[in-house]
């Protein structure tokens, strides 16, 4: 019997707008662990996502914005 369809497990990625887009688009190539210790502001994350476009990722501007918003909020710079 086929297992029930489950959403990808991604510990460390709290629910917030943009999460689903991120999980669907990025985890094809990357494991979530790579990002857990990385912090940068929204612009930094936006730059990362656009560099993935240069590597062949096919995303709309709206999807890029949603992912950058999410990462900027969840994985923004740690307070000094």
């Amino acid at each position, binding site marked *: 019997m086929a297992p029930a369809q489950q959403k990808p497990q991604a510990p460390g990625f709290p629910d917030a707008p943009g999460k689903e887009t991120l999980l669907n688009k990025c985890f*094809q190539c990357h494991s979530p662990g790579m990002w857990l210790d990385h912090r940068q502001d929204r612009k930094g994350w936006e730059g990362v996502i656009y560099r993935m476009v240069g590597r062949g*990722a096919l995303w709309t501007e709206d999807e890029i914005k949603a992912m950058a918003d999410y990462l900027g909020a969840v994985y923004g710079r740690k307070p000094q």
Partner: protein
Amino acid sequence: MRELVARYLSHSISRRTFLKGLSTAGISAAAARSILDSLVPTAHAQTAAEGVKVVEGSGALCFAEQLIASGVKYVFGNSASEDAQFYEALVDRPQLKYILTPHEGPGAAMAAGYVKASGEPTIVMQAAVVGLVNAMGQMFNAFKEQTPLVFYSYRTDQTGRAGRDGFEEVANQEQLVAPLTKYSWLARRADMIPETVRRAFKAAWTPPYGPTYASWHSDLNDQQVKTEVIVQRQFDPRMRVRPNPAEVERAAKLLVEARMPLLVVGDEVYNAKAVPKAIKLAELLGMPVTQARQMFTNFPEGHPLWIGGLPVARVSSLEFPKNADVVINVGNKMQHNSPTPIVGRGAKFIDMRIDSWSMGNVMSTEVPLVADVAHGLDDLTAAVEQLVNASFKEKAAARAQEVRRFSEKARAMRALVTKNPDWDRAPMIADRVTWEVAQFADPDAIIVHEAGSVNLHSFDFNPDGGRELFFYYGAHLGSGVGTAAGVKLARPNRQVICLVGDGSFVFGPTALWNMARLELPVIVVVYNNHAYSGPHSRVIEKVPGGRMVQTGHFFHDYLGSPDMDMAWIAKGFGVDGEYAESPAQLRSALGRARKATVEGKPFLIDAQVARMGVAWAEKPWTPPIRIAQERTRKV
């Protein structure tokens, strides 16, 4: 005129070509005829049978004669004292042009680039085993990339003293290369040198292509012998295989009945000059086209049926189509880098290639089509045309429209790369360097790409008359600069631009010297981020959140402190170069590079690229090894 005579006597050119050459050199028709008449007895005396010439001289002279008969124009080699008689033979054989390469690795890369771009045979010569092992990195590349490249090196140990562990001796030297070659052999006698060389060329150039190795004891080069030299056409099997007709019928039926067929192309398409045939089949079926990693681009990237490369090297990862029910591979060796096969079990798989050895090893194959892909595509297209009716045409047109809609959307998405918030920064992001070069390059430029961590975009490669890509598949680093030199040697009338990472560049810069000496006007652009950025990211992916990330102590990735200056390295090899940090500086430098190449000179741009990505410090840590400070004597 001396070269003409030599070529005529060695049967490299016909009487007619010889006479035409004399006429071009300003010699009257009567005088030319007289010269020819005086040479005829000599030419006939040398000919035992059609295409067979009996030669007498040193073993090395016979070696040189066989290379000429095998169609070799350029020989790539590094200085080897035991090849003295070969160099002696070159003096009176100007049609055999020797290119001295200062390191065997870039020398072999140059030879491979020449073969890939010209389709002509060549040979790489090394000094004994010590030179051979330097060349073996590129031998590995040639093996993985299926490049028909012949390698030769003598054994320093002579027949009378072999087996005593002497100078430069290693037991069973020819066996070192066994896993990396299609054929390796040791000539046992001097008179067998031409035969051994012939077999090396025959094996390398019989599909599936690959490197071969010929060797003999060095004293055989000096021995006087009389032996036969045979022209290439008399021993080449000229293997051009047509596919099994019954399998062609099955493949055509599967493709016509498919809901969503998908074409994967590979390097056999480029090598067989079959790109227009692949386009014809795709258009007939309204079939989307993709490609897994290869050296060449094998389908025009601007074609509406082109959907882009395979992400993560899996058909199932494609954004479109999600529902391919029949996948046909034409000429792609399919490098499987994951336990998941490139083509999953859900789709029916047709595999058309000449490399039967690697077919059916991983993927379940519904229809194997062992063939020269040019013939295979002709036969398959003809079989599909037999099955085409009005309703199929309607289905194919609707499918083509669906593919076109996706490819236009994907094209617009790829163009978003310029919206990166770091687009104008200095040092530059790698994508900006790529984009600037793509705006600059000629419409039919050849791009040699060995910037491993950089994905190219914006070039719109088109092997059917537009820009061409020469990427690498083997991954022994240091091939890029040499390959570019070899490509320019083969195609001097095309703009050649070499894109290379700083890490790769420093493995093989000596070919710059060849560019300067041979007046090979290549533009080299080094993406210089003073780091191995690929290994940096991949290590973090393997040990996320580990001690390296916590401390910032990365041992393996930072090439700065001090920074390497590639423009100065280029100057040391006689190539002008400059440094570019901003997009404006890069554009300006590219303009000067164009001017230099118009004047016949190579040019290098040391493009400063920012280290972007996870866990890069502004000034990366380096291991605290500073020996000067540990000295007890200041010497």
